[in-house]
């Protein structure tokens, strides 16, 4: 499979090119191939063990990273997609539906960025409009009515900054979604799968368990946006990524998230199926714990958890 390498992956790319050249000359059993494969693997591992916030930003945005659709097809059985906010329209940037995870009924929702030009346009690059967040509220209410837990997959650069979105109350839609997520009477698990961009992300991430993939990011503004405001230079995005503490590791330390889900070596985009499986295991484990609590305890615990963020740093 042809693979696009990120800039920081160049040492691995060079090794892989060598391997391919050797194979092209002398077949898969060519001398040195096995050895080089091992070197490449080790290199990848050491490289990924120490990548910084900016490299993680690139990994989090990698086009081959598992998206909502991969999580659905890999984890959810009996999936029925549900559309529309019953008010204005349907938003393809924020999808959702009913299904089962290992036999357990769930309501699932999440951003979908798309993978090629056509699907990216269709899904508006994962940037939801008010209808997306109003659909999320509708799905959460549905889950509540039938006492079904909620799973959300967050992967967005942010809510869409468009004219129509503003006219139809983007801010109100996000606020209501946050409001609903915090008061919903059923277990709620959220996975920051790629990019957790600002209000558009937190709108569906006010969960009992907020988990981040090892190389995902979660931030108040994109590194580019932060850089253009603070340094008046979007090119300083790397500095902004570092300064804002956007990695899963930093956010776990700060008490903003509850758990980190390990990714396969070299990032989730290198082994989609394996990554999806790891995420599934973490979700099921978390749901099993949360299902033991009654709704009153659940809501109190969720609120206390969010109120404690920041206070725990005093």
């Amino acid at each position, binding site marked *: 499979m042809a693979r696009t390498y990120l800039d920081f992956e160049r040492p691995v790319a060079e090794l892989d090119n060598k391997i391919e050249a050797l194979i092209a000359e002398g077949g898969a059993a060519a001398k040195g191939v096995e050895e080089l494969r091992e070197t490449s693997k080790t290199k990848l591992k050491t490289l990924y063990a120490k990548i910084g916030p900016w490299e993680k930003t690139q990994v989090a945005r990698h086009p081959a990273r598992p998206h909502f659709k991969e999580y659905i097809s890999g984890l959810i059985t009996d999936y029925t997609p549900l559309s529309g906010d019953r008010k204005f329209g349907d938003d393809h940037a924020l999808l959702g539906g009913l299904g089962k995870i290992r036999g357990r009924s769930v309501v699932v929702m999440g951003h979908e960025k798309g993978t090629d030009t056509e699907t990216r346009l269709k899904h508006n690059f994962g940037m939801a409009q008010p209808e997306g967040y109003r659909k999320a509220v509708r799905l959460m209410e549905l889950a509540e009515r039938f006492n079904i837990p909620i799973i959300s997959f967050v992967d967005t650069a942010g809510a869409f900054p468009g004219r129509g979105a503003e006219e139809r109350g983007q801010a109100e839609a996000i606020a209501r979604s946050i409001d609903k997520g915090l008061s919903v009477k059923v277990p709620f698990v959220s996975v920051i799968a790629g990019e957790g961009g600002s209000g558009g992300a937190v709108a569906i991430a006010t969960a009992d368990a907020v988990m981040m993939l090892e190389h995902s990011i979660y931030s108040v503004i994109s590194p580019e946006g932060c850089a253009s405001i*603070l340094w008046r230079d979007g090119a300083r995005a790397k500095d902004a990524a570092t300064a804002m503490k956007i990695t899963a590791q930093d956010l776990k330390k700060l008490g903003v998230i509850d758990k980190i889900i390990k990714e396969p070596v070299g990032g989730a985009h290198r082994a989609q199926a394996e990554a999806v499986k790891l995420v599934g295991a973490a979700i099921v484990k978390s749901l099993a714990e949360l299902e033991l609590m009654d709704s009153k305890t659940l809501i109190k615990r969720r609120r206390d958890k969010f109120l404690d963020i920041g206070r725990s740093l005093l």
Partner: protein
Amino acid sequence: MNWLTKLTPPGVKDIFSKKDTPDNLWMKCPKSNEMVFSADLPGLLHVTPAGHHLRIGPKMRMDYTFDKSEYKNVDIPAVAKDPLKFKDDQKYTDRLKKARAKTGDQDAMNIGVGKIHGIETVILVQNFSFMGGSLGMAAGEGFIQAAEYAVANKLPLIVFTAAGGARMQEGALSLMQMPRTTIAVQELREAGLPYIVVLCDPTTGGVTASYAMLGDIHLAEPGALICFAGPRVIEETIREKLPEGFQRAEFLEEKGMIDRVVARKDMRQTLAQILSVLLKTDYEKLLEDA
């Protein structure tokens, strides 16, 4: 700098540039460009004769809103200091120091408790002059404190919002103020207490997308910019110019996002009216008793 000042030697320049009048004796109305005598502004509640509502800070806001400008302040709990050790071209702690020196406040939120037409009320004012009113941990804690004070004392809460959005220097901890303040709104709701939002110029970003849009009643000052994404960001995204008045208070009223645009001179009366209905009190009687 014009050609004359460029050519004039520094010593001479000082003589010329010495002002016989202080900087702020007159101000130019942004709406009509007419000159307004600054000393007249308090009498006009800081609204120019052309109707432009100037941004005002917490002290003025409370003076203009509470009966006889009488109220007491409620302290806001301290928060962790610069947990990200954030630095751009200057340290976050230095920016904070400057903002504190400029405003005399610890952060962007001030809480006052007093009466409006006799009705005891908690007022929270977000100060745009303090780092753009940005919603960091301290502002979030201020909101929570105001709501909890209202709940503990069974009082309504009125919030005057004004913010450029999140406080980037606190990263995701700033973002977390959206759910945290929302929890405080839920506490008010559960206690059956009125929560009124008065959206002031400007209210944007994460502030609009959390507590500012979750009020029982939404009022706004005339001409206030109220939005999630700012006009510049939208223009950059859609590559077209936005029409005049887009995202202004009057526009939001038309789009169904706020209940009323209320001029500052009518704000006290409007608030008292709404509160007296929601709380089922007779404020005229309260006034007589007082």
